[in-house]
């Protein structure tokens, strides 16, 4: 059993809904008095129940988990799932309603960037102030100061008031301070949402270094699945204050993205599926069927035929098809133009061939779009919905590669061919 850094034990956090208290002292006293005398609260709005249970909201509901020392753990969940609440409890910004949290080591939180930056102070002064707020002593900051400034890339401006910094510069400086702290546990919430790409990569590299080489524990919350994937060794998925999954990052992301239905289906009924709101639904996709395969797990490089069926209200309009292929983190991989669809009024079908050699092995979803565009370039959307999920697997025979690397992206591009001269 490894040493633990954090143990969260049956933690609940309750918030009161609506305005808290009577919002004024007088209102509060009136309500309190009324409750004492068992009379109706004069400050209740008409129809409101007298302090019923529905006034309470459980942001966290009996949550428990352990984090091992040196682990980088991601916390995933949709807005309102309780991610930020649990981080707030762990860094002691607010107290849990029930349950206990045990921690081993100092904690640095980077819940939002620039915590405690004072606009009037210079970068140098703010590094010291911010470091102290995050729990460092002056001597510790002295020791790390040069390292912090060098990492932040704002050395030239270190004696300029922070109010004249660009937002990117502030973020860089804030991240540098926080990531150079000697704390055992780091908490990060969406910190990498700002800053340019180079700096984001640098941050991720730094965090990896922090986690792997320095043995620190990181709790990471982000909606950016790419960074979660490259950073976290394990993830917890929260939903409505409860833990719904704890385990490998890949699976957690799939659950978070609601892509847990990577079943073995080859027939996808889309007649009842959710549509893109801009569609006028004059031509509606009914289903998609993968042919010549028994599952939607497809071997890399295989060409898979599939058939789409759609319902048309008329036969007078021109109809075109395109597909957007999305990766597991919902980032589009690319678009495929399917050309014109011949159709008559009523049910129609068409067969296509999907060449999987353009995709890196992994899980994908495909959105299909029925549309038309006139000569002026105006687009008419008939339908857009997710029609297909598939998993692309690879074996060593089909590709002469043992590993696909995450940072290769999701597409295999056929755009370079060797020029051979006949001589």
């Amino acid at each position, binding site marked *: *059993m490894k*040493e*633990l850094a954090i*143990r969260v034990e049956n*933690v*609940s956090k309750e*918030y009161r809904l609506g305005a*808290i*208290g009577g*919002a*004024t*002292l*007088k209102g*509060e006293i009136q309500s309190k008095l009324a409750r004492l005398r068992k009379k109706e609260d004069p400050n209740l709005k008409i129809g409101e129940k007298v302090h019923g249970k529905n006034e309470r909201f459980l942001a966290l509901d009996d949550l428990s988990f352990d984090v091992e020392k040196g682990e980088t753990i991601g916390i995933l969940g949709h807005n309102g799932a309780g991610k930020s609440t649990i981080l*707030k*409890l*762990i*860094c*002691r*910004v*607010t*107290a*849990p*309603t*029930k*349950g*206990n*949290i*045990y*921690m*081993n*080591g*100092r*904690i640095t*939180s980077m*819940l*939002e960037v620039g*915590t*405690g930056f*004072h606009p*009037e*102070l210079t970068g140098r*002064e703010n590094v*010291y*102030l911010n470091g*102290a*707020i*995050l*729990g*460092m*002593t*002056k001597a510790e900051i002295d020791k790390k100061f040069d390292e912090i400034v060098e990492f932040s890339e704002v050395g030239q401006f270190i004696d300029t*008031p922070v109010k004249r910094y660009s937002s990117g510069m502030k973020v860089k400086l804030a991240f540098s301070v926080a990531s150079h702290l000697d704390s055992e546990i780091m908490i990060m919430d969406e910190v990498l949402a700002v800053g340019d790409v180079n700096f984001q990569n640098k941050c991720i590299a730094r965090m990896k270094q922090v986690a792997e080489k320095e043995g620190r524990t990181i709790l990471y919350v982000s909606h950016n699945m790419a960074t979660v994937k490259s950073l976290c060794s394990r993830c917890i998925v929260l939903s409505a204050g409860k833990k719904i999954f704890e385990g490998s990052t890949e699976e957690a992301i799939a659950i978070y993205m609601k892509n847990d239905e990577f079943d073995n289906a080859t027939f996808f009924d889309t007649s009842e599926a959710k549509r893109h709101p801009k569609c006028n639904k004059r031509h509606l996709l009914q289903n998609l069927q993968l042919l010549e395969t028994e599952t939607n797990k497809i071997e890399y490089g295989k060409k898979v035929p599939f058939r789409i069926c759609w319902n048309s209200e008329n036969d007078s309009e021109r109809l075109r098809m395109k597909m957007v292929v999305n990766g597991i983190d919902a980032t589009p991989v690319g678009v495929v133009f399917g050309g014109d669809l011949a159709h008559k009024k009523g049910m129609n079908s068409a067969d296509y061939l999907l060449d999987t050699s353009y995709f890196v092995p992994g899980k994908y979803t495909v959105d299909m779009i029925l549309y038309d565009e006139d000569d002026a370039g105006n687009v008419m959307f008939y339908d857009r919905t997710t029609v297909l999920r598939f998993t692309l697997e690879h074996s060593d025979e089909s590709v002469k590669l043992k590993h696909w690397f995450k940072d290769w992206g999701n597409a295999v591009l056929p755009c370079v061919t060797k020029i051979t001269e006949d001589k």
Partner: protein
Amino acid sequence: MAQQNWTTIVKSGNSAFDMDIKGLAKCKDLILLLVRRTFVAKYKQTVLGPAWAVIQPFFTTVVYSVFFGNIAGLGATGVPNFIFYLSGTIVWTLFAHCLTETSHTFTGNAGILGKVYFPRLVMPISTAISQYIAFFIQFAFMLCFMAYYLITDAGLAPNLLILMTPVILIQLAVLGMGFGMIISSLTTKYRDLAMVVGFGVSLWSYCSPVAYDMFSRSQLAPGSAIYYIYMLNPVTPAINLFRNAYLGCGEVDWLFYGISWVTTIAVAFIGALMFSKSEKTFMDTV
């Protein structure tokens, strides 16, 4: 499972007696840096800089001397009006600023406090220390005028009570912080109090012998009916003691000075309890 050592345990519920004194001791550098921040940020981009700390009480004193001292005739007996008002103003300012600045602790710093944990008492303490710095600048300014009046033999009689200076200064800051912490804790829920602070403090100054000499008023002089109520104001005996020590004017009523200390300790105690009770969950309501 192996024996696990925990350095921090966060428990549910918020007991008021659960103060993080140990953590506070570790925050020495943070307190100093916050003091520096307050001070540096206040005078950044001003031409006169810390001179403003002196200019404000100087003009207040001039206005008091002209309007209350000369026109209304509420001035001091035996000592020059100017030094009388200056001494009262700087002592009052120390108290009033400790109170108002502390009362903004939770609402004004919600940004920082909502993101990182450090013992929340760091905030009021650093506020008080920065008020002391401003006070000592003003105090030095007052000593210059005292020297002038002593040379010109204007009736000043500084005495050994000067040794009480640290006691007075600590009392005023603690009292201001105490009230400030009570208000700060309550304003996390009830913003009404934030409205009261501004004019409440200025009304309070008129209930204290800042802009007039209580001993030259027969209505307020010792023995009068209102005197016993008036002296319950914890700031009054402290101001009287300060003036008596440096200027030699007025009287010191040790009984009421003792009562004022009792009030101070009570207020500070209640303030600290309320503060530590609300610090854990104030982010949910602020």
